[in-house]
């Protein structure tokens, strides 16, 4: 059902956890649908210095979360914003059809965290 890469990220997820005093936090999904993803970021000089996730959801949800953290760590905020869910699925060697829509939300969680970071910056600069 899942590719080896998906299974690898599911069994050995990268960057699980929460960052203390994060620069941005984003959460998407809801328990009714069975998937919740939470990303927290530390950003320095417009780069993602650290990123961690927590996920409630199926194997695909956990693997996409893990993959997103790997893909964007060290990247600029702009580069991170360019990442979308389809690219995450591709990086994992593909996802089963029925998982493409329900569980592939990790890029959304990342974007939500970046939005939170930008909001905080605006507030701080006031």
């Amino acid at each position, binding site marked *: 059902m899942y590719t080896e890469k998906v299974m690898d990220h599911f*069994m050995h997820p990268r960057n699980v956890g929460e960052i203390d005093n994060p620069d941005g936090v984003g959460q998407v999904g809801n328990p009714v649908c069975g*998937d919740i993803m939470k990303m927290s970021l530390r950003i320095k000089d417009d780069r993602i210095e650290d990123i961690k996730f*927590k996920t409630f*959801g199926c194997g695909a949800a956990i693997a996409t979360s893990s993959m997103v953290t790997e893909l964007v760590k060290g990247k600029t905020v702009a580069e991170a914003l360019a990442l979308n869910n389809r690219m995450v699925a591709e990086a994992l060697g593909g996802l089963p059809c*029925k998982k493409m829509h329900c569980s592939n939300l990790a890029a959304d969680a990342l974007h939500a965290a970046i939005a939170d970071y930008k909001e905080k910056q605006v507030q701080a600069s006031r």
Partner: protein
Amino acid sequence: MRNVYLDHAATTAVHPKVLESMLPYLQDKLGNPSSIYSSGREAKAAVETARAQVAALINAQPDEIIFTSGGTEADNLALTGVATALSQQGRHIITSRIEHHAVLHTAEELERKGFQVTYLPVDPDGLINPDLLEQALTPETIMVSIIFANNEIGTIEPIDRLAKIAKKHGVIFHTDAVQAVGNIPIDVEELNIDLLSLSGHKIYGPKGIGALYVRRGMNIKPLMQGGSQERKLRPGTENVPGIVGLGKAAELARIELPARSAHLTELRDYLIDGVLSSIAHVRLNGHRTLRLPGNANFSFEFIEGESLLLSLDMAGIAASSGSACTSGSLDPSHVLMAIGLSHEVAHGSLRLTLGRENNKEDVDYVLSVLPDIVGRLRAMSPLTPAKEA
């Protein structure tokens, strides 16, 4: 790695004696039971022996057994067949919220065809209150269909009382006993059951074969048209090896029922006690004692069922979940919702169903790996309270 199969409610392995009984009909015995030459008559005799074996398991008469392609077809035939035959007498049907999809979706299809359907609720243990059935009956009611024992949470319904109420009101009573047959004693006479569905592959028989018990004199229309097999209620060349296998499986189930049931009940209670005592934030779904001997169903808070199944699979354990993610639908199991679980808790359900090959070592193995798996997934979950992670 140990391999432990704990999904017997999904399907069971064919019993070696069942396979042995089928093999001649898969090898050289090739007659079509409708043919009059010797091998045809032999096939016919084998089909009739199987019919008697299935009948004996539920205390029916052989001519009350109609072979179908499985539990799903038996359920469809029962509901659609009776509704079509009796539509002049009334157009109201009563069933429950925790039926298998084969009944539930057929009832919904009948609604689209102009029937009214009442879906009885269940209590938090999954039990139907017979008083609610009494209240739901109207002069228009032609049929009641209630699952004998639920396939997800294992709760055994008070079929004796429900069927008696239907009988008192002169209403046909059907039960989907696919999970109950072979696991708990069933006597259609004593219980006043008019129609009963069963399926081969749930009782160590083959897949692709099942049966509908239809009480003598019942008015019922076929689902399909064709040849005049199965007293014109089910056309098509008989699946002789499948029928012979189902017959043998029924015979074995009848003989071994007390032993199987005792064995499974003991393992089940050991498993339930072990899980509840070693893992926090867990709930047992379904009634504690009025449940199928082999069924255990838990909800683990803060985690999701599919990731639990995947992790168990990596540890060699085959299980099932009511999580939406495994079914491809967006909603978690309607059964778990009907007993009042929240979406999160329903998503975190795990069904472990034991079978005749399981032993105490299997359960011990599950108990040895499950706490860590749950712990690992909880550590990853944003829903887990900080103090638990």
